[in-house]
């Protein structure tokens, strides 16, 4: 393996390439905007905005195809910190936190901050506890890390099973939500669009694996951010005269505080353990925007935040990203960038929710005379909201909004040309594809590396290894698509379950494997399985009503269980080998060789001697 010097080289033209992509994307937007004014048919515009970006992503994915395992599984370990941070942040959000998250902020205001606080804390946890050490180790997947760290094939297989479940849940959530956004954009049927999106994801990432996902993902992230920022900034200029929605929606919030209560929105104090994030479908506004703890209780808020943080920090589709950075320092820095992008995007999402709420408040405070306002007719016509025609006037009860449609109702409410809305949908489809690519690539790597070849550490001939992973990308995407079609579930809830499952099973074991050197392989194995089992049981029990804790946060019961069992078993069964101690000692020091490569070379030598 002779890549150490060459592999650290970062492509100096990255900025140029993505500058070109961003201008292409902006040009597509301007062109469609002009065409709309020139009265080009609406159908063609929608199709152009749906297919254009998909083709761009596929071209990028195809042009970074690779045969080298290092490129295929770790993007050549040469993705700079800024780009890694961008992808980390956007993958952690996916389209779920953007589309469903806007709805959550719109309906429950302050309480939805649990998503933002949890995500930010997740990156902080990851930066301090896991990321630099994982990068020093340099494994391609989380199960490979655990298997090599404890020299145990059983642990590797078990970890692969445990990691595959939440990854598949997120994959299905992202495909489902992406398809329902695409339904709004194109008007095709939902199941056809799930298939199209799954195919597009496979086409974009199968040739290049993690490398393809990296550069495609950066393009998708840029598309998402551009779409969100253009719309939010334009509305901010209209409403507040400044294009910085994140900072200037303050006076609007004050207006909400002043008037919402007068118009009949009351805060009903929540039960401490309550955790009512709005589900799919139409809802009416239920609580004043800034008052805390009306839908989510105090304890639920704290636990939910910690759960999302633990899940984000150890997610098997996020953590291996840092292994693609050129070094340990870059890995640390990338988490700083992830915090920046995540925070700014979520602040934009809150401002979108506030703008939308302001339009609704204006409506409620106005007298109903004659026909409905134009924007409300359009929003209702587009299926983003409903209005009770029998109501005597506009009240918070008579107006119902679709949770996953709030984001797309904003450009209509602001009276912008239709293309703004379509463009926003294109961006969100990009976000869904980004989330789906991240999970499908990780799932494929886990299945092909840790399950199929998990019983031997001998790496097969390079070509086979990459081709095997390619097949598994297709299989993973197919499984995700099938799950979406057969068992459609609320994406936000799926993502929260996934975070609960990883936070309960992988987070304690990964954390202890670095910070507590006496952890043994039996301890890690039992702890991980106990955490996963407890979390899964708790979720099922609470779904069936046997456990009086909301299912979104019930899974986190597994975290303390996993930690306790891992530590107890490790204290009783002492079997830490010299090799384990050496590895953990090396993980803790940033300098020196990448441990995974060294181990692989050592095993190769051993095999050669034997044969």
């Amino acid at each position, binding site marked *: 393996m002779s890549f150490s010097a060459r592999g650290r080289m970062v492509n100096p033209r990255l900025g140029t390439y993505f500058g070109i992509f961003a201008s292409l994307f902006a040009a597509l937007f301007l062109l469609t905007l002009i065409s709309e004014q020139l009265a080009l048919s609406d159908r063609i515009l929608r199709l152009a905005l749906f297919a254009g970006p998909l083709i761009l992503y596929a071209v990028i994915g195809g042009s970074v195809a690779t045969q080298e395992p290092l490129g295929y599984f770790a993007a050549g370990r040469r993705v700079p910190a800024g780009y890694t941070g961008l992808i980390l942040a956007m993958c952690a959000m996916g389209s779920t936190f953007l589309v469903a998250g806007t709805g959550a902020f719109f309906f429950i205001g302050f309480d939805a901050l649990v998503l933002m606080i949890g995500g930010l804390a997740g990156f902080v946890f990851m930066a301090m506890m896991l990321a630099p050490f994982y990068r020093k180790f340099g494994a391609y997947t989380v199960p490979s890390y655990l298997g090599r760290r404890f020299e145990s094939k059983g642990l590797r297989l078990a970890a692969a099973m445990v990691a595959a479940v939440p990854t598949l849940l997120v994959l299905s959530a992202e495909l489902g939500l992406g398809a329902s956004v695409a339904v709004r954009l194109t008007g095709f049927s939902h199941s056809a669009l799930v298939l199209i999106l799954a195919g597009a994801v496979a086409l974009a990432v199968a040739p290049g694996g993690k490398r393809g996902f990296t550069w495609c993902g950066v393009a998708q992230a840029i598309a998402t951010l551009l779409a969100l920022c253009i719309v939010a900034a334009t509305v901010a200029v209209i409403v507040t005269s400044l294009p910085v929605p994140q900072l200037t929606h303050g006076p609007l919030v004050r207006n909400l505080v002043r008037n919402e209560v007068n118009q009949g929105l009351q805060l009903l104090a929540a039960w401490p353990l309550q955790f009512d994030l709005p589900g799919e479908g139409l809802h009416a506004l239920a609580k004043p925007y800034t008052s805390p703890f009306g839908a989510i209780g105090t304890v639920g808020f704290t636990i939910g935040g910690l759960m999302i943080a633990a899940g984000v920090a150890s997610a098997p589709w996020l953590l291996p990203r840092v292994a693609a950075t050129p070094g340990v320092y870059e890995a640390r820095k990338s988490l*700083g960038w992830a915090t920046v992008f995540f925070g700014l995007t979520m602040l934009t999402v809150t401002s979108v929710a506030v703008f939308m709420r302001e339009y609704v408040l204006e409506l409620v405070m106005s007298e109903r005379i004659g026909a409905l306002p134009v924007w409300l007719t359009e929003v209702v016509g587009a299926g983003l909201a409903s209005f009770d025609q029998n109501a005597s006037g506009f009240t918070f009860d008579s107006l119902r909004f679709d949770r996953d449609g709030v984001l797309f109702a904003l450009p209509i409410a602001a009276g912008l040309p239709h293309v703004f809305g379509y463009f926003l949908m294109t961006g969100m489809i990009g976000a869904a594809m980004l989330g789906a690519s991240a999970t499908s690539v990780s799932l494929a790597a886990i299945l092909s590396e840790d399950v199929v070849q998990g019983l031997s550490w001998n790496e097969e001939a390079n070509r086979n290894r990459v081709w095997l992973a390619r097949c598994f990308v297709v299989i993973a995407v197919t499984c995700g698509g099938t799950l979406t079609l057969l068992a459609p579930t609320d994406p936000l809830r799926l993502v929260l379950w996934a975070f609960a499952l990883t936070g309960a099973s992988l987070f304690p074991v990964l954390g202890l494997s670095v910070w507590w050197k006496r952890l043994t392989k039996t301890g890690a194995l039992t702890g991980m399985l106990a955490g996963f089992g407890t979390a899964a049981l708790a979720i099922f029990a609470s779904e069936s009503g046997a456990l009086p804790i909301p299912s979104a946060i019930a899974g986190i019961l597994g975290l303390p269980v996993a930690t306790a069992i891992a530590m107890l078993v490790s204290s009783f069964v002492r079997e830490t080998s010299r090799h384990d101690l050496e590895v953990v000692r090396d993980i803790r020091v940033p300098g020196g060789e990448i441990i995974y490569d060294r181990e692989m070379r050592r095993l190769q030598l051993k095999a050669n001697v034997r044969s």
Partner: protein
Amino acid sequence: MIERKERKPYWRHTKWQMLASFLPFLAVMIVLPLYAEELNRSRFLGFPLGYFLAAHGFFVIALVTVASYVNRQNAIDHWHGAHEDT
């Protein structure tokens, strides 16, 4: 490459640095939202203060925590000779 006898002091230093960055952050994360109601009575930039601190404020706190941690930890690495050899 780090010297053998430097490993222990290096890891002790690292551990304390991690706790010193992590515990205050965790405390803020848990306590800040609980006082939002009271803080909401005053305002800043037009935002009710509790909401502003939980959204914008927490973002800045997370950013400062990561940035200062990365900066300190890199300094610790260099101090003990544990840094990457680039």
